């Protein structure tokens, strides 16, 4: 049977409950929520005066009611050591989500740490160290001393390049301005760490480098633009599942035609109709199905490209639009350069593109027409959205450039109903000292680790074991190297610190690696580490971030962090304090002095030292002001503080000035050059199935919290692999059977999910899942800037076993909504 909670009533929020601002800490959309809390021995009542909604709760509430919350939105947590009831529910007044909660965000309360209700008991509560053959609790001072002693010894002996770092650099639960600053000041301020990487890729680089080099920052529009566009072009993004409420609350109204009033009011003097949408994706997604349900099939165009050929398609559309003269000549002349160069270099005929991409020529022309054919003499407004299908796809740098070329040519940057924007994964929240010393291309950190480089590894909220490429080889070597240190640690008494440090350093010199893991939960890579430092997450600390339209909000601290855990920024500060002390004791006062400036007591200290003092417009932003701005916040950058409000920026580049020295956006040459990453062509020739991969609606990120969600693990005990039923029959695989996916890079497992809309020979597997890591079969090849190419993976598939017992209750029906 499907998982059921058997909850038949919930405590009612009393009228005098505490109400705090919260922003969902999962995806980039950053839906507005409120956290309501009240003492555990109190409750509200059904009479209007007895509850926060001032509503008669003895009656059935209507659809979209503000006066209802699901069991997943409720928990009992601690505030200042006392148990309190908490309800975390979406905010109707937030412009981002208008009260919508997704299957991920609306479970924030249930996925909070609760001793009373035994949720998220996996959370780390104490610093843990490798001692007597297992990970056991210790004090902060003991753990930090060990980390600092080993780290200081190694960086002094071998230089800072021997300290490897993996660190979050986003927002929400993936960082936030406080925590990126804390870690940034440690590794880029006090030290100049070069061998550093980010949570989802093996180097410290931009996922969208070309758009930045062109002067067009990647989050340049606002969510309202999706309501105003004539045509939305969704390239390699599955937004219903990965930016759910952006899609539901801002794309769907346009597709339904319910944003027509807004179009007419804001954009008078031009014809308006309900929106059209073009999808460029080898796979038919639920997003496409939903668009057809809303807009009608006649207004939805799915260009099902051959995997990895987006660049050729985009160049063909660009060429066609230019040849037709459907370009914004005034804008190109006033605000850009190198247009002619790009036209010449990127010239691609419709026929050639059709052949390469597998998309019929008439559909390519139709797409160009929908994007740029003037509407009664007026410029058509098109919004270009892209995400991991492109970012983790073939030839990242050039393909993103080709999208921006098309947007610039048609005058769709900085204008209403336009934008050339990534959709995003996490929220953003980056504030760090300059990173120029890292270099370009940046170091391929995972490759260096496999080659035996580095002596100490600090890991912040990253789990390479689940979310890297060439993962099987990485895990094999990483375990071997960290085991050398574990064995050495087992050879001396833990309490003899000098002997312990010497044993570890000797082991490092013998090829070992000392690994320190800062996280909120025990991770898979954590199993190889020697020290775990427990971190607090959003809501357990005050945390600031911005969403995909640069909307900055604060999530207030609404509960205590588990046990002794601390905000990451304060962990970084305490590491710095101990480094200073240890280096001074070693007699290196000059080096020790570099670790000054970490006397923060609270996350707000880190915020003021970082974002407030350093970021553009940061001087207008304080915690107090952000709290007053609530779930709507303001859009970065801030330009003023007036009448009690922070004034923001709705769209970037609205004045036609771009982020280059002369203010002109640059068109880029971006010729098609086949499968660009090393090893991909060969893999494609050698193996039978495309192993496309990505996210599932129910799961947040690598399921680091969802592994303790009964709802999610009941639905996906194993990662699914969507397969065409004929492909399944050919290898005698039935629904739910466990299969092995294997190739020249490695092997992994998945559960077969029959999918009639999947093209033969093309599968789609859930990425980054703990019970079957797709990265095991992604080869080590990257682009020239060390961006991984997860999407273009080919492998063979064979049956492992019939569906295990834990799978038999599952539905394997189509995930597409049917009216």
């Amino acid at each position, binding site marked *: 049977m*499907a998982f059921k909670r058997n909850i038949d009533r919930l405590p009612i929020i009393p009228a005098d409950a505490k109400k705090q601002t919260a922003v969902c800490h999962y995806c980039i959309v950053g839906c507005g929520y409120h956290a309501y809390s009240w003492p555990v021995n109190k409750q509200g009542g059904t009479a209007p005066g007895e509850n926060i909604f001032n509503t008669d709760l003895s009656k*059935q509430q209507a659809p979209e009611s503000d006066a209802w919350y699901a069991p*997943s939105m409720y928990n009992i947590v601690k505030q200042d050591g006392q148990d309190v009831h908490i309800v975390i529910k979406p905010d109707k007044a937030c412009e981002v989500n208008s009260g919508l909660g997704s299957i991920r965000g609306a479970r924030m309360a249930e996925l909070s740490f609760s001793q009373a209700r035994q949720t998220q008991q996996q959370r780390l509560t104490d610093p843990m160290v490798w001692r007597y053959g297992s990970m056991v609790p210790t004090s902060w001072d003991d753990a930090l001393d060990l980390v600092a002693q080993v780290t200081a010894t190694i960086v002094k002996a071998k230089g800072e390049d021997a300290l490897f770092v993996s660190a979050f650099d986003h927002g929400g639960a993936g960082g936030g301005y406080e925590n990126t600053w804390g870690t940034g000041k440690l590794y880029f301020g006090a030290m100049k760490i070069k061998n550093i990487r980010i949570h989802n890729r093996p180097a410290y680089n931009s996922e969208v480098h070309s758009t930045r080099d062109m002067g067009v920052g990647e989050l340049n529009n606002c969510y309202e633009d999706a309501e105003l566009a004539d045509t939305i072009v969704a390239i390699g993004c599955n937004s219903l599942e990965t930016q759910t409420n952006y899609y539901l609350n801002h794309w769907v109204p346009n597709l339904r035609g319910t944003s027509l009033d807004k179009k007419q009011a804001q954009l008078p003097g031009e014809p308006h109709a309900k929106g059209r949408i073009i999808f460029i994706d080898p796979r038919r997604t639920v997003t496409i199905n939903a668009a057809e349900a809303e807009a009608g099939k006649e207004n939805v165009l799915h260009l099902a490209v051959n995997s990895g050929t987006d660049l050729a398609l985009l160049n063909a559309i660009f060429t066609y639009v230019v040849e037709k003269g459907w370009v914004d000549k005034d804008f190109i002349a006033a605000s850009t350069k190198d247009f002619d160069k790009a036209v010449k270099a990127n010239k691609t005929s419709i026929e050639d593109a059709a052949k390469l991409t597998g998309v019929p020529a008439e559909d390519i022309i139709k797409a160009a027409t929908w994007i740029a054919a003037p509407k009664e003499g007026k410029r058509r407004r098109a919004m270009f959205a892209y995400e991991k299908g492109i970012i983790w796809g073939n030839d990242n740098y050039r393909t993103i450039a080709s999208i921006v070329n098309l947007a610039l040519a048609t005058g769709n940057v900085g204008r209403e109903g336009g934008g050339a924007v990534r959709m995003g994964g996490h929220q953003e929240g980056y504030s760090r000292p300059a990173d120029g010393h890292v270099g370009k291309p940046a170091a391929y950190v995972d490759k260096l680790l496999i080659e035996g480089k580095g002596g100490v590894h600090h890991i912040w909220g990253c789990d390479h074991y689940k979310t890297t490429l060439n993962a099987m080889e990485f895990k094999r070597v990483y375990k071997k190297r960290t085991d050398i240190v574990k064995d050495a640690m087992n050879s001396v008494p833990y309490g003899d610190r000098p002997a312990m440090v010497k044993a570890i350093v000797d082991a490092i010199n013998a090829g070992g690696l000392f690994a320190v893991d800062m996280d909120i939960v025990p991770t898979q890579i954590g199993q190889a580490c020697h020290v775990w430092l427990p971190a607090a997450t959003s809501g357990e600390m005050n945390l600031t971030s911005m969403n995909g339209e640069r909307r900055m909000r604060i999530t207030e601290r609404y509960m205590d962090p588990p046990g002794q855990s601390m905000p990451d920024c304060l962990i970084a500060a305490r590491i710095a304090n101990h480094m200073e002390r240890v280096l001074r004791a070693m007699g290196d006062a000059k080096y020790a002095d570099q670790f000054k400036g970490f006397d923060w007591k609270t996350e707000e200290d880190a915020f003021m030292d970082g974002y407030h003092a350093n970021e553009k417009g940061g001087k207008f932003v304080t915690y107090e002001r952000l709290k007053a701005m609530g779930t709507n916040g303001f859009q970065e950058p801030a330009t003023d503080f007036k009448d009690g409000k922070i004034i923001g920026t709705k769209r970037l580049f609205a004045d036609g000035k771009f982020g280059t020295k002369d203010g002109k956006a640059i068109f880029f040459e971006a010729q098609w050059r086949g499968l660009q990453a090393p090893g991909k062509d060969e893999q494609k020739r050698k193996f039978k199935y495309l192993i496309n991969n990505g996210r599932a609606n129910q799961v947040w990120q690598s399921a680091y919290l969802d592994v303790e969600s009964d709802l999610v693990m009941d639905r996906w005990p194993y990662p699914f692999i969507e397969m065409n039923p004929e492909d399944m029959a050919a290898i005698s695989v039935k629904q739910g059977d466990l299969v092995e996916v294997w190739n020249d890079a490695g092997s992994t497992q998945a559960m077969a999910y029959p999918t009639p809309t999947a093209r033969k020979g093309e599968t789609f597997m859930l990425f980054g899942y703990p019970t079957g890591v797709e990265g095991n079969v992604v080869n080590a090849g990257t682009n020239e800037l060390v961006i991984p190419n997860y999407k273009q993976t080919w492998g063979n598939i064979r049956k492992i076993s019939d569906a295990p017992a834990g799978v038999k209750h599952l539905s394997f029906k189509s995930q597409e909504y049917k009216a």
Partner: protein
Amino acid sequence: MKRCPNLVDTGRRQFLRGTGLAAAGLATAAAIPHEAKAASTLARVSYPANRLGNVSELKLNEPVDVSYPDADAPGVLIKLGQRVEGGAGPDGDIVGFSTVCPHKGFPMNYNAGDRTLNCPGHYSRFDVEKGGQQVWGQATQNLPQYVLRVDAKGDIYAEGLDELLYGRLNNVLA
């Protein structure tokens, strides 16, 4: 001397009860302001047993509109023609579900083709052959299913629910 801990505990409890009673007596005598009487409630909601129909009225894969546990809570009874977990009746194939989407409360449609309930609000869909498992969607719970009982006459009674219904913080309104 080894003592029996159970006996010790029993003794302690008796002792405490004794002093408690004595203290209560004293309190009454001193006329301390009266204590509020605790309201007596049960741990779970008491569901009515409502007759929703008769087996003879059900046709294969044709949903019958019902409501449970009251008129404001629409649902369906469906005869599936094959035994399913949670199915009632002689063939174990009769199921009952709320038809209010647990995401945002929109009324759902039954798709007889693949036996799912579908929400036009945000495209969530639930499998009536798999205990209301959300096949895909934005609800944070699977679909509330009726606990059904079929008596000797073939009358179908609903006697409970296994999830919270949308739009009410207590499945039985009061």
